[in-house]
């Protein structure tokens, strides 16, 4: 039982924090958001320079193989700074999936360019009816000649438009709600039949709906064994949810600090509003909820690689519930306590609030995970 971080981990967190504070100020981010693509390649290259794109890539392929606790520390800081670059998708989700698919050729092709930050590879699994239920997969891949033909619609894929290459999940057998029959294909987003509809999400991030109409891919683009990808997809989702929880925890910490500062300086009725007990108790509750969220983020980071699938599922769903609920409470109360100022685009707190809100809506909200937790018996 040990809640301390290693020296290397602390160093990593310090490095990323320095980068965010020095090179990713609120104004810098605002300029990035104004750009057409809504995120910055320059920033991405800087992250690569710090080794962060290699964080979750196996050592055998030039990565650092750092693991979920290191990722958690990095995501805490990215939450604080509200990073809009595709780190979660390209540097967490994709490496986690590729590792679990155990396909030597795809690994040798993709990991080096992922680690170097050269190429952005994005997993597209979610569909309009997924809503957290990752065993839902309607996109189909039909065998045709010596390849496959893909048809389907992937929805709200974070940074789908930024992808130099897509990893599309598709069903090679079985029915929409079956875990069996799922496969993963490498797809060039410029291929005939692929339509990428990119847009911004309300939290400033970018996402895309990706339509696949009779998209032809060679058989060699299949990663891993046909029809057997579900466990890998589920495992990769769990690692990514852990990282997402850590991002939320970083945001809550920043939001609580901002609210405290604001209520200490804002005066009404001749005194700082922080002197009012009703606000003090609200902030005490915000602190309490963020502490519970932090605890669950630790649990998520530790358990997301547990070999026992139901143990993993329970821990990750429990974490997503607590973090979704805490994020909603902390975010809403932060806006409330900032009063009219909290409503403005000018203050970081409204941006933090929006990202917290978006995180709960991502990969299954608190209600979804509460139901999933209830349906998963303890091992």
């Amino acid at each position: 039982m040990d809640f301390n971080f290693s020296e290397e981990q602390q160093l990593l967190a310090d490095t990323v924090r320095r980068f965010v504070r020095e090179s990713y100020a609120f104004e810098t981010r605002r300029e990035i958001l104004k750009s057409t693509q809504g995120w910055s390649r320059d920033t991405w290259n800087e992250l690569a320079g710090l080794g962060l794109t290699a964080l979750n890539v196996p050592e055998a392929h030039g990565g650092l193989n750092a693991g979920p606790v290191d990722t958690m520390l990095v995501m805490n800081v990215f939450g604080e700074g509200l990073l809009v670059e595709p780190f979660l998708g390209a540097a967490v989700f994709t490496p986690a999936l590729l590792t679990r698919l155990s396909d030597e050729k795809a690994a040798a092709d993709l990991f080096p360019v992922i680690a170097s930050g050269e190429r952005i590879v994005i997993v597209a699994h979610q569909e309009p009816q997924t809503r957290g239920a990752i065993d839902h997969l309607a996109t189909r891949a039909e065998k045709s000649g010596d390849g496959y033909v893909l048809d389907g619609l992937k929805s709200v894929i974070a940074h789908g438009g930024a992808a130099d290459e897509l990893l599309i999940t598709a069903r090679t057998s079985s029915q929409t709600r079956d875990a069996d029959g799922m496969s993963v294909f490498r797809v060039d987003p410029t291929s005939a039949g692929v339509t990428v509809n990119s847009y911004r999400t309300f939290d400033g991030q970018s996402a895309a709906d990706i339509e696949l109409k009779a998209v032809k891919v060679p058989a060699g683009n299949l990663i891993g064994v046909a029809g057997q990808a579900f466990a890998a997809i589920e495992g990769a989702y769990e690692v990514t949810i852990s990282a997402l929880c850590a991002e939320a925890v970083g945001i809550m910490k920043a939001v609580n600090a901002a609210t405290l500062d604001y209520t200490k300086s804002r005066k009404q009725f001749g005194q700082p509003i922080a002197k009012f007990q009703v606000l003090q108790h609200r902030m005490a509750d915000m602190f309490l909820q963020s502490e519970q969220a932090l605890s669950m983020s630790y649990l998520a980071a530790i358990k997301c690689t547990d070999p026992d699938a139901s143990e993993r599922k329970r821990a990750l769903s429990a974490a997503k519930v607590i973090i979704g609920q805490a994020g909603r409470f902390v975010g809403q109360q932060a806006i409330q306590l900032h009063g009219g100022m909290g409503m403005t685009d000018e203050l970081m707190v409204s941006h933090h609030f929006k990202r917290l809100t978006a995180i709960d809506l991502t990969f299954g909200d608190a209600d979804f995970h509460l139901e999933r937790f209830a349906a998963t018996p303890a091992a």
Partner: protein
Amino acid sequence: MDLTFTADELAFRDEVRTFLRERLPQDIATRVKNGLPVRAEDYTRWQQILHKQGWAAPSWPKQFGGTGWGPVQLHIYDEEASAAGAPRTIPFGLKMVAPVIMAFGNPAQQQRFLPRILSGEDWWCQGYSEPGAGSDLASLKTRAERQGDHYIVNGQKTWNTLGQHANWIFCLVRSDPNAPKQQQGISFLLIDMKTPGITVRPIITMDGAHEVNEVWFENVKVPVENRIGEENKGWTYAKFLLGHERTNIAGVGASKRELGRLKDIAAKEHKNGKPLSEDPLFAARIAQVEVDLMALEITNLRALSAEAEKRAPGPEASVLKIKGTEIQQTLTELMMYAVGPYALPFHRESSEEGDLKSVAGPGYAAPLAATYCNARKVTIYGGSNEIQRNIISQMILGL
């Protein structure tokens, strides 16, 4: 960061399990596991068994006869003892007055009182709250006038828990009514309950239980040697005591046991022809309290390990108090709602006798409403949850 137990810790857990399996009296465990009242003689019997094992005081240092266990061992012990149905520790001697005697008592007081707390020979109770001094404890009025080598104590204490079984009471008394600040005129006295002039009057709570009392002091003569530390410095010791009250304040082990009982009950009850545990709304309520408890368990472990490394000043315990008591209340509420109308029949006497039968309906339903009513106290005592929020905002948020 690592949340797993070491081989030594797992061996310790096995040792605790074996001890509980062999030594915990089953009649006591049955009461605890079914939410039936635990009698004074049950507490004493269990304390004596623990004493024989050398485990009477898990949280004390070795030099005073404690186990000297570290935070992880304390956590494991709490978890295992709670799951097995061991009764809670009556905190007033072991967890409240003892740490004060160790830190501020003189060697004579330590030798006189501590061994008798360990053995269960002395049953301590608390003389803190008064009718006019609850959350604002420093406004207490019970007067102690110095006369030679004695104090003469006059006044009234209230919300005294289980004092009807106690032979000693520790009291906060006003020894200097003219001190410039309320906090400065208070002394900390140890008083023999058999001293003439002490009257204990029961307060019956809404669950029909006699758990709390009023204690009246009428010209009670207390030797000066029974004062802890210096005269008029009692507030310092009182605050120290309140800090130690937090040991295991989260009650994670007991809440896990109660969660198990809730799930058992929900599996036996039916709604729409299906077990209540499969009802989507009720299953979600159970799941919610379970995830809250999972988070509390980690928060508690974080606090324990910070305490072991002397990193935390202690106000984080307020988070544990608030969340822990909210979860305790939710569990009693859900159990009561799980049995529906059969929560209504009430026959306290059969519960007191440890009888699992009910006047009507399933036996497990009989104590649930009383437990629900009784559990309203947990967010009020030990510093109400509103006071805990004051502590968080002052000590942690710096407001």
